[in-house]
Structures are given as C-alpha cells and as structure tokens.
C-alpha cells in the first residue's frame, strides 16, 4: 500500500496494535470501528470523547519515540503535515512500519479512509463509510444558485489570519457556491490588516474557534463598512472541525453550507448591494 510520502508500506500481518500521531487519523480509526486496536494517541486526540482515555504518546510535533516503542505497535499512522520527518524516520528505524496519510482535500480524506481501512483489514466498511461521507458532502455542496457571498475563513483574530487558496477551508467555501475573499492574496494563510479587510469587504465571516482564540477586537468590528460586521454575519465554528483533515470536515462543510444558505435567505433579492469600504 502506497502512502502519501510515496513510500510503499508492507505489513507482515494484519496490524493489531496501532499508534496514531494525529487527531484526524485517530478519528478515522474510530470511524472504522477499529479503536480497540489503538494503543497510543496524541495529547490532542479528543474526539470522539473515548479517544481522550487512550494512552498518550506526546504531541503532533513532539511525539515521544520512547513511549511509542514501549507501546509496541505494529503500525504507526502519521501525517506529513505535522509530524516531523525525523521523528517518523526514527520510528521506522526501530522497525515499526509507518503509514503517512496527509489528505489535502475532501477526496484525499475519502482515499485516506479507504487505504487505512484496507490496511486494517476492513476494506468494505471503509468503502461504505467513505461513500456515506461523499454523499453527505455532495448534498451539502448543492448547485451554485443565487447570490454568491464573499466569505473569509478566519483562523486567528489577532492578528487576522485567514485561509487562502489551496486550503481545505477554501474548498469548503467554494463547494457551497460562495467566493473566498482571501483568494486574491498569495499564500495559504495570508495575514490581513484592518485596511485589507475594508478592501476585501467580506459579506460573511467564519471563525475557526480554537482554545484561547479571542473574538475580533472592537477596533476591527467598529468598521461597519465591512458588510459582515455591519450585518452581524460572523459565524463561529468548532476549530477542531475545520482544521483537522478527518471525517468531520464533512460536518464542517454542512455547517458552512447551512450558514451560506441562511445568508442567501436573508440577503435574497438585494443583489445591487453597495460594497462598503472602497476608497474614492
């Protein structure tokens, strides 16, 4: 089985002891009903709640090799987006096979579910779970009709950092027929000044709420030229839902889709709206 590093991972037998090095991978193992095999997860693995009771092997960026080896897994699930290469190599050098799954979009998530399912000996169940997610996603991304709100997906409110082109969140926005206002900027996670917000003038803002994230400061929200602030169109989503490339991204897509539909209902027929915040 080829993983997302391009490494072909061969297992001598079906794995019975798993370590997961990312919350998204832990969620996939639970989705497949294989949580009984998990002997180690990261300290960030908090979903489903039972995952919190599993033994911890450190963090995503700082997995503890010694604890992983002590847990005696016969397969480690890892990602290239957060786990340091050297750590993964060190685990492999201890003779423990590692399978990397780093989905970059929704179809990557389905594929990761199917490949991990095949590795764990439940290929049929994996196919049906992936199929169910696919169906939910296509229901949520109904054909583009009506107004296309300009949307920003905010990952940090101070400073304001948003999801740009090439991110999951960009895909979620586009699938619901909205326009990602940050696509005009280069880079995956551009940082915007208040004046940039005035210029892009988003109609709808999603905030990925993470532990400790502040609300927008009043110095930013007082700019009523920004339609989203003027109309109170700021929607907070669970940060775990939108920042983990796991099965729950589909739930995030459903929430984004609902919010965009609700926005369309509130702003229907008002197609000649003036854009605020433009100078001159």
């Amino acid at each position, binding site marked *: 089985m080829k993983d997302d590093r391009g490494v072909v991972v061969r297992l001598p037998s079906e794995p019975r002891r798993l370590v997961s090095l990312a919350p998204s991978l832990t969620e996939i193992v639970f989705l497949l009903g294989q949580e009984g095999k998990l002997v180690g997860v990261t300290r960030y693995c908090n979903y489903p709640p039972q995952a919190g009771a599993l033994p911890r092997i450190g963090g995503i960026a700082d997995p503890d090799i010694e604890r992983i080896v002590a847990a005696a897994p016969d397969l480690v699930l890892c990602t290239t987006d957060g786990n340091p290469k050297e750590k993964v190599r060190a685990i492999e050098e201890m003779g423990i096979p590692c399978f990397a799954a780093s989905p970059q979009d929704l179809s990557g998530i389905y594929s990761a579910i199917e490949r991990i399912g095949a590795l764990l000996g439940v290929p049929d169940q994996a196919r049906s779970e992936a199929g169910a997610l696919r169906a939910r996603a296509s229901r949520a991304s109904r054909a583009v009709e009506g107004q296309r709100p300009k949307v920003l997906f905010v990952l940090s409110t101070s400073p304001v950092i948003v999801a740009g082109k090439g991110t999951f969140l960009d895909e979620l926005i586009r699938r619901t027929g909205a326009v990602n206002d940050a696509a005009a900027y280069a880079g995956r996670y551009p940082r*915007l*000044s208040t004046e940039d917000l005035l210029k892009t003038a988003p109609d709808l803002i999603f905030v990925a709420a993470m532990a400790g994230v*502040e609300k927008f400061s009043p110095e930013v929200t007082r700019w009523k*030229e920004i339609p989203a602030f003027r109309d109170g169109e700021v929607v907070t989503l669970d940060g775990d839902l939108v920042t983990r490339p796991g099965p729950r991204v589909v739930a995030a897509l459903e929430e984004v889709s609902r919010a965009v539909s609700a926005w369309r209902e509130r702003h229907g027929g008002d197609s000649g709206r003036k854009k605020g*915040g433009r100078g001159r």
Partner: protein
Amino acid sequence: MRRTSPILAVLLGAFLGAIALSVSTGPTAVSLRQVVDGLTANGWRGIPSDTGARVVLTLRLPRALLGALVGGALSSSGVAFQALLRNPLADPYILGVSGGAAVGALAALLLLPGDSFLPLPLCAFLGAALAASGVFLMARHRRGVSRERLILMGVVVGAFLNALIMLMVAFSPPGKIPGALYWLMGDLGLGTLPRVGVLLPYVAAGAGTLFLLSRGLDLLLLGDEPAFTSGLPVEKVKTAVYLTASLLAGSVVAVSGLIGFVGLIVPHGARVLVGSGHRRLLPAAFLLGGTFLILADVLSRTASPSGELPVGAVTALSGAPFFLYLLRRNGGKT
C-alpha cells in the same frame, strides 16, 4: 554645529517624508481631497464619516506616528546603551528589557480573559521596568555599577526570561499562539490614536532626558576615570542614563512588541552622519530611527502579496546588509 545643521534638516525632511509616504500608502485608494473634505465636513471636530478619511486618520496615521515614536525611542535608547556600556554591540534589549516586557505581555495575553487587550501594554511595561531594575540592582556593588557586571547580569537575566518565554509559548492554547508570536516579532498594527497619545509623553520625556544628559554621555565614552576627573558625577549619570534608556525602550516595546535591530543599527548609521557628539547624535538617531522604522513598516505592508509581513523581520532583513556595508566602508569602525 554649522556643519551638521544641514544634515539634521535633511533628516527631519526624510522623517516627515516617511510619515507622508506611510499615510498615503495602503490597499485602498484614498485621495488627499477626501481626507481634507472628511476633516472639514465636521468643522475639524471628531472622526469624519467618510471611509477613506477614516482609514487615513484612524488606521494609517496612528501607525505612522507609532513607527516614528518607536523607531526614534529605540534608536535613542540604543545610543545611550552603547555609550553607557562602551560597547558597539549594545542595544536597548541587551540588559533584559525585552525579556521582561515579553514575559509581562505574554502573561497578560495568556492569563487574562480573552477580550482584555488593554492591560497588555501595562503588563509589558511593568515587566520591562522590573527586569531592568532587577539587573541594575544586582549589578551594583559598593563602589557603583561596573559595565562588565551590568552586561553579565543582563545576559543571564535575559537568558532566564527567554526560557520563561519559550515555556509560555509552548503551553499557550493554539488560538493564542499567533498573537503571542506576532507580538514577539513586533507589530505596528497595534497603534491607535489613544495609544499613540499615551506613549507620546513617555517618549518625549525619555528622549528629552537623554538629550539633557548629552555631555555626560560624551564623557562616559571616555571611561569612568577620565569622566570622573572632568568633574562628572559618574555613578549618578550612569544610573540616570540606565534608567531613562531602559524605561524609554520599555514604554515603546509595551505598545509595539519586540521590534529588533533598529536600536542596534540606527545609532551606528547616525554616528556616520553626524559624529559621536551626543548633542547632535541623539536627535539624528531619533529622526533616522523613526524614518527607518516607518519605511520598514511601509515595506512590510506592501512587499508581500500574501498580506502583512512582521515588521521586525523587515527591519533586520533590510538593516543587516546596510549595516554590513557601513562596517566595510568604515574599515570596521562606525
């Protein structure tokens, strides 16, 4: 004096020009006419209702003024530290001011509830003042303060505070990490008119006091003994310079975060222009520092297509090559 007056006039021109450039640069197009109309519409009272005029007056102007104050204050403070420690590598952060401010700011950011941004500058300033006075008290012995002890204490306290900073960042909840990191890198976007208004008297008092201590700084450069024999109350002057320069740096860092390199490089640049007499050097360094930081901020706002860059990175990126050029041109001396 006659020789340097034109240079100071040119520096003042550049300083004002940088403010004008900063105020007229940004992602939205605003005309001068809009700003004037916006201001006069209310008879020069209150904030204008026109968006463009408000962008200029409440976003860009405070930012430019904050850059002027912070750049000027860090450079003046750097001049004072370099003279006090007789060390060309000294800068405002060398004796623990930065570490103290950072620990204070991060404590405010992480421990206080979400919305309370206001106490952050206060906590940062307190941290800076505590660290600076701690270093000073520990470096003191019966006969006064020696430079070597000051540097040693400053470096040790700095290392200790750095360790605290790393721990605090490592333990911060993910949502707060960007805010903490951007503060550590320095950010003029935190400037608002009220904050600039609060900062102005501190900077004016600090830079003014250092200016009054000019002769003392000149003599300190010669060393303690010659300074003492010229009738300078050496220990008193050292104490005054140390406290003023530390508090000056602490007060601006509290608002802008840790903007690096300005306080190290600008004093050397100013010395090349006007020599090392502090009566001319201090004003020149203030103007040059303000100009440099404002221009670095304009660059940080416009250079990247992916939004703003941290201004602290821009100051070092653009400043380091210039610094090397100066060093080479002057045969290793500035």
